[in-house]
């Protein structure tokens, strides 16, 4: 072992005692951080990660907090949550799941080393919103949401949230941290304690940076500041933050040549997404409780985005079906400059207009579109509850050119034709998707029209 590896606290091969007479065997030093060091370990037959704290962080409150988190359990599988506290000679650490190699640092998005498309970024943001929703429900707060704690599988948009040992009860602060500049809510920058409300601000910043690849407060002011030091950040993130697209103050707008990502992407996303971020970064600056979107709202937003994505008929890049854009510009076009459909009018994709009471949702129909339970009921806030597939696209076996919708639910659907005939679609049967159909009744309080 090289002397340069001096920072390692525990020798490879050493076996620490674990619960139930098991051994936690150190396999390899993975890395160090501010609070301690992380090792790959074998606990029984499982390969896990062990975080072992430096002397300064060996505090009984932290140990008690970790044990509490373990008792509460992981909000969902997206968290590399503490599994077991390991103790040895009066010191402690904890084991958690090991991050698989396909999950990469989320910061790599910004310099283009990994890339998410509309579909995968919507999936990632949905997972984020649902994960923090589940974390907040039992009264916990994460306290330091920032991209350093987020890993993404770029091919699927699946996420992993790490560094969960600082999670604490809303209003408490065991680890003595406040957050990361550039993600902290203004009241935390100004000296307040982080909590579930400040999490909601940081979550919005994180999602903004994933979608737009620039920072919601770094506009002209950022460009005009030669030294971006602590004083500047305190001023522009804490004392007088101004959203780069504040509707009533353009003095901090993004600058062409400097913040081109957001200038381009702000136009690409639909108005309802722009509205949500505008709310959080204007009203939400001073109204932590009501000015920041709840995770449920973000779930709605990103589900809506997912439902409206279709592949470009020429180059297959994901495109957003955006009614407002069609109204304003008269067309939907492909954004890919290499595509023959670039800035050309594309054919409007077929879609379902689903009505639930007074609410409406437009679901674009692609060959791989599935309908989920949440789309056909009044409220199904969580991804898990809303998850079951209730319909999928199906080809007519007699003529594969003709597409239909297969009933994967337990309800007997019916549909009404233009001539007034009512037909049954029993579970596992498929119905045609043609202009001849006036309305589908999913027997869940949801009905739908077909738009072709």
């Amino acid at each position, binding site marked *: 072992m090289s002397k340069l590896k001096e920072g390692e606290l525990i020798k490879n091969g050493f076996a620490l005692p674990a619960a139930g007479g098991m051994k936690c065997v150190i396999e390899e030093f993975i890395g160090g951080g501010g609070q301690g060091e992380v090792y790959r370990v074998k606990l029984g037959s499982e390969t896990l990660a062990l975080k072992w704290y430096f002397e300064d962080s060996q505090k009984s409150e932290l140990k008690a907090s970790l044990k509490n988190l373990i008792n509460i359990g992981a909000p969902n599988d997206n968290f590399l949550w503490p599994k077991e506290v390991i103790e040895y000679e009066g010191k402690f650490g904890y084991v958690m799941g090991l991050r698989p190699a396909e999950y990469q640092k989320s910061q*790599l998005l910004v310099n*283009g080393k990994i890339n998410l498309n509309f579909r995968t970024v919507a999936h990632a943001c949905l997972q984020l919103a649902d994960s923090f929703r589940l974390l907040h429900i039992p009264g916990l707060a994460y306290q330091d949401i920032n991209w350093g704690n987020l890993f993404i599988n770029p091919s699927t948009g699946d996420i992993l949230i790490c560094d969960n040992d600082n999670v604490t009860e809303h209003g408490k602060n065991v680890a003595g941290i406040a957050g990361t500049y550039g993600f902290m809510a203004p009241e935390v920058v100004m000296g307040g304690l982080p909590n579930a409300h400040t999490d909601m601000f940081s979550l919005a910043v994180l999602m903004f940076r994933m979608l737009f690849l620039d920072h919601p407060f770094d506009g002209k002011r950022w460009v005009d500041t*030669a030294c971006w030091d602590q004083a500047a950040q305190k001023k522009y993130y804490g004392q007088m933050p101004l959203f780069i697209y504040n509707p009533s103050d353009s003095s901090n707008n993004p600058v062409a040549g400097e913040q081109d990502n957001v200038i381009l992407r702000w136009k*690409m996303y639909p108005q309802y997404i722009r509205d949500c971020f505008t709310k959080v970064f204007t009203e939400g600056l001073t109204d932590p409780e009501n000015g920041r979107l709840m995770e449920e709202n973000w779930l709605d937003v990103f589900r809506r985005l997912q439902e409206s994505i279709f592949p470009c008929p020429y180059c297959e890049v994901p495109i957003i079906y955006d009614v407002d854009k069609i109204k304003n510009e008269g067309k939907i076009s492909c954004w*890919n400059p290499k595509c023959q459909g670039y800035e050309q009018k594309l054919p409007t994709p077929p879609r379902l207009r689903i009505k639930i009471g007074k609410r409406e949702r437009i679901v674009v129909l692609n060959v791989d579109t599935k309908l989920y339970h949440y789309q056909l009921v009044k409220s199904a806030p969580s991804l898990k509850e809303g998850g079951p597939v209730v319909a999928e696209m199906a080809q007519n076996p007699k003529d594969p050119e003709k597409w239909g919708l297969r009933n994967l639910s337990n309800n007997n659907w019916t549909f009404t034709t233009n001539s007034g005939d009512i037909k049954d679609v029993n579970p596992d049967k498929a119905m045609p998707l043609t202009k001849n159909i006036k309305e589908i009744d999913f027997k869940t309080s949801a009905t739908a029209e077909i738009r072709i």
Partner: protein
Amino acid sequence: MAIDSVPIIGGGVSKRELKIFWLIDVSGSMAIDGKMTAVNRAIKAVIPELQSSAEDFPDIQTYVQAMKFGNGAEWHNSSAEKIESYVWREIDAEQAVTDMGAAMQLLAHELTEEKLGKKAIPPVIILLSDGQPTDNYEGGLEELLKQRWSKKSIRVAIAIGKDADEEKLKMFCSNPVEIPPFVAGNETQLVKFIKWASVALSRTASTPAIDATGGVAAVPTPPPIKAEVKIGEASDDTDDDVW
């Protein structure tokens, strides 16, 4: 066209510049007890860590530049180089005195508004010395501290061995109370301090840490001076060279 050949929309992100300066004493005494070897090893070891750390800050471009001071002072790299492609060329000790004042003067020229540009974050400056300044150190330091960027910079000093002048080094430090000069008594400590100063302080410059009392923590906690006792290994580690 397949999805994976789609161009990435938008460009790279606009970056701020972070400069890390290492000011290295090359006086004759650095040749003794493997001190210079240790400095070379430490900097070589810290480069991959800085490269990996830089990935966490995609909106910051990190540069490094090393200076030698002995009989006078000169840049080891004629200009600051990007960390991604930086290769350390070893430095040798020279038959030289310790012109630390000359080092301060030379550095002052790099801390001008013109040199640091319009988009920067506080530079990190690490001074390494094993002896007493032999020239007009105070005069050079005064010139350095006159620069507007000096006030913003994060300056730390590492005293190599017991012969270094801690009081003089303290004058250089930007936060002498919380982060006084480190005294490296052996190679492992030196490596630890150089790593901490380079990596942790550049991370602080990139995204300042903040503590829960609302006070802005200017710098992260320095590494413990006493080496942590390793678990599973005898604590009387005979591997350490003692100078």
